[in-house]
């Protein structure tokens, strides 16, 4: 039983990162990252869902039997996603207009589901909440990084429309890195997503290898 929050944080953010190590949730990771802002927004919404659903599953983990656990997980994730969807529509409408279409897709993201099955269904509420949160933040970082690389190379900007997502105070994040019309259009189209995600995986492996803490390629390290 790991209840060491440091380990949980390191796993979620780096060693067992949802996108870059476990390679889960690749569909939103590629579809939503044509700009850093979109990646950030999608990541934050997913992180909120993961934190809430991990905690809920953990609270109820002794009340459902093994046989019906999968439908209960799906039920809990779907409920949290719907609640996030409705709350965002009501109170964060600008963000909702950017991300609204993609929020329901969190239900079919493998990452929350995998973490619930591996972690939250076996641990008590607080560590589960931490796991959901850090896994979500790790997912957000990966998506923002992919989005940033694609946005710089594709449209020459970084964090464009960030003020729509985070509020006018974050206007300073919006910048133009390359002059107008110099971007490679392909990078913000689907092929760019595959290229950049692949490159990110390479970079992460290289860093891991250099620090001699190489993780086996596919074998996602499962928490006990």
């Amino acid at each position, binding site marked *: 039983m790991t209840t060491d929050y440091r380990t949980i944080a390191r796993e979620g953010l780096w060693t067992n990162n949802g996108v870059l190590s476990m390679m889960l949730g690749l569909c939103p990771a590629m579809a939503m990252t044509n700009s850093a802002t979109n990646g950030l927004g999608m990541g934050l919404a997913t992180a909120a869902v993961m934190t809430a659903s991990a905690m809920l599953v953990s609270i109820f983990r002794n009340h459902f*039997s093994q046989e*019906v656990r999968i*439908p*209960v997980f799906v039920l*809990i994730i779907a409920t949290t996603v719907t609640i996030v969807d409705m709350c965002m529509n009501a*109170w964060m*409408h600008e963000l909702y207009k950017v991300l609204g279409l993609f929020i329901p897709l969190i239900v079919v993201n493998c990452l929350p589901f995998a973490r619930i099955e591996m972690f939250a269904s076996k641990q008590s509420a607080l560590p589960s909440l931490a796991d959901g949160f850090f896994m979500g933040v790790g997912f957000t970082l990966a998506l923002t990084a992919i989005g940033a690389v694609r946005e710089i190379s594709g449209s020459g900007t970084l964090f464009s429309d960030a003020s729509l997502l985070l509020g006018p105070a974050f206007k300073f994040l919006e910048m133009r890195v390359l002059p107008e019309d110099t971007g490679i259009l392909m990078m913000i189209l689907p092929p760019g997503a595959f290229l950049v995600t692949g490159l990110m995986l390479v970079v992460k492996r290289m860093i891991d290898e250099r620090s001699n803490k190489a993780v086996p390629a596919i074998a996602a390290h499962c928490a006990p």
Partner: protein
Amino acid sequence: MSSQRTLIHGLILGAFCLGFGMLLVLTNNFTKNDIALRAVEDRQNSLKQVIPDSIHDNNLATDTLTLKTDQGNEVVAYVSTKEGKVTGVAFETSGSGYSGAIKVMLGVDPEGKILGARVLSHKETPGLGDKIEVKKGDWILRFTGLSIGNPPLDKWKVKKDGGQFDQFAGATITPRAVVKAIREGLQFFDANKTKLMEFKAGKTQTVDAETGKAPK
């Protein structure tokens, strides 16, 4: 014995569904008023761009005239009035672009001149077709002030088709669709002009549309 166990599992699952269903009902009750408000605000924002504030003193989002066409479509016209007189009409029209429908909000004054046109939603290629957005270029602004007759009907095409409107480098289908959508919108307005002009402010009405193709 085993059927009893099955029953228990069923009951557990049922109880969870009931509990989380109730949670959803609660959230829905809490948020539905705000969600409805946001939808009205959205509509007002897009109407504001095609009908200038200075020409109306009514609430555009609620003063609507629904035109029913014989194909069974309904077109909702937002009518702007000032001191009881109709000063403009805004309605949605759409064309089929390179990848799916392009929705355009069109504002027209009583003479049939365009007050403003804005693309509400589209799925065109970023970098090529998205110059129809007002955020990415001033192309859509060039329609303001035009009407059927200025330019003449056969010039309501992109240049490639012998008309007067610019296409974009690498994207002809998108501007062609927008030009067609706006042209059809104007024709729809001309066909239904009498009915639209008879509008009385302050109530929501429904009438049958005249013949002529309705913007979908």
